[in-house]
């Protein structure tokens, strides 16, 4: 069961970013990902984290606490991060993805991230 199901209209902003990240990841080679793709990936993941944070923080919530916690947990697991909340994850986004890119594991980290969210 995906964390952001299509049947839930409120899930669409997050699931739309997940679809974009999934397409970008599919187009990536397993190794030697271009700098252009890294930058695009940083911006896309950054935006997903931001919209999750923003829609969770607003009242009424459009992203539930369970959904926000799932994104944070997936982020920490896939990108080997230690973010305690989504704002910290947003702050780590560029450096963590660049670290994965440097070790030639950006595509697999992205795939893990999407998989944990059951995309």
């Amino acid at each position, binding site marked *: 069961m995906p964390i952001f199901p*299509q049947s839930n209209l409120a899930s669409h902003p997050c699931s739309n970013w997940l679809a974009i990240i999934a397409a970008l990841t599919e*187009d990536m080679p397993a190794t030697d990902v271009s700098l252009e793709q890294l930058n695009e990936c940083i911006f896309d993941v950054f935006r997903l984290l931001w919209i999750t944070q923003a829609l969770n923080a*607003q009242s009424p919530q459009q992203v539930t606490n369970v959904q926000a916690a799932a994104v944070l947990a997936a982020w920490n697991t896939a990108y080997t991060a230690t973010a305690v909340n989504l704002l910290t994850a947003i702050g780590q986004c560029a450096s963590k993805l660049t670290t994965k890119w440097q070790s030639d594991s950006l595509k697999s980290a992205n795939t893990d991230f999407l998989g944990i969210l059951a995309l």
Partner: protein
Amino acid sequence: MSYPQPDADLSLLKGLSFFRLNTQLTSPGDIYESPQSARAFAVGPDSDISKIGVVYYDPTQTTQMNKFRLGPERAMSSLFSAQNVEPYMPVYNPANPENSHPGKILIYSDDAYDPTYRPQFSDPADTVIITPPRLDVFSFFAPPAPSVQSSRVDKVFDFPTVPRVNGTNTWLVIPFYGRKWGQVTAIGETGDPTTIAVLGISYMLSALGPGFATGRAFETELFPATSIDEVNATNVIVTAGNQGCFDALVIYVEGDTEVGIPRLRVTMSDTPAATPGT
């Protein structure tokens, strides 16, 4: 993100020949969807955002997804499909409709925006007022006239009095994405000169990592802190050719309660100055 988001279906049902998405951004991750195919896209006149990302269904791609960036220089005219059944990325969505992502048209700001931005030299007690950028885009249901333009109006931000908390400095952040020309006009209050300064900033998302303060940006001083009087207006001209391009203009206004409150006007245009070097 305004929610519920504007409904493209409603525009069609009500007989409009276009869907207009005109909304202020509330976060850098705002993204909108349209289930209606489009024959053209154009930047709307009220847009502060200059680069708009558009994702559409493209069966020639292995991911079924393609995208382009729309700017104020030209409209994009063709048939852009929206699919409400066929999904993006079928490889990740095997026969499970809950996992599928129907190939709707997706629209988002491709310009950077950071609502947590604070000027580098601001005091923690200072008031930072960020004007959220407006995203305005037209999606035409029928082929538009060949003369359709993708252009933004010359925008004016008026501050008859600068809002501020007594005793603290105020930093006004005004969106300036892709503008070729801008002018900040300021005049002091009678008998009470005030100090102002103007910065040009570009948001620096890569600086959000460890070792950097959240909300950093590339900051360029365009007008140093200067006392302005109430007789002659002070004009600061910013051109892409001379100073460069910026995501926003930042105007510092001294907050001492002993000084007056200046009047400000910020004007901007996509048309370069008529005379180079001015």
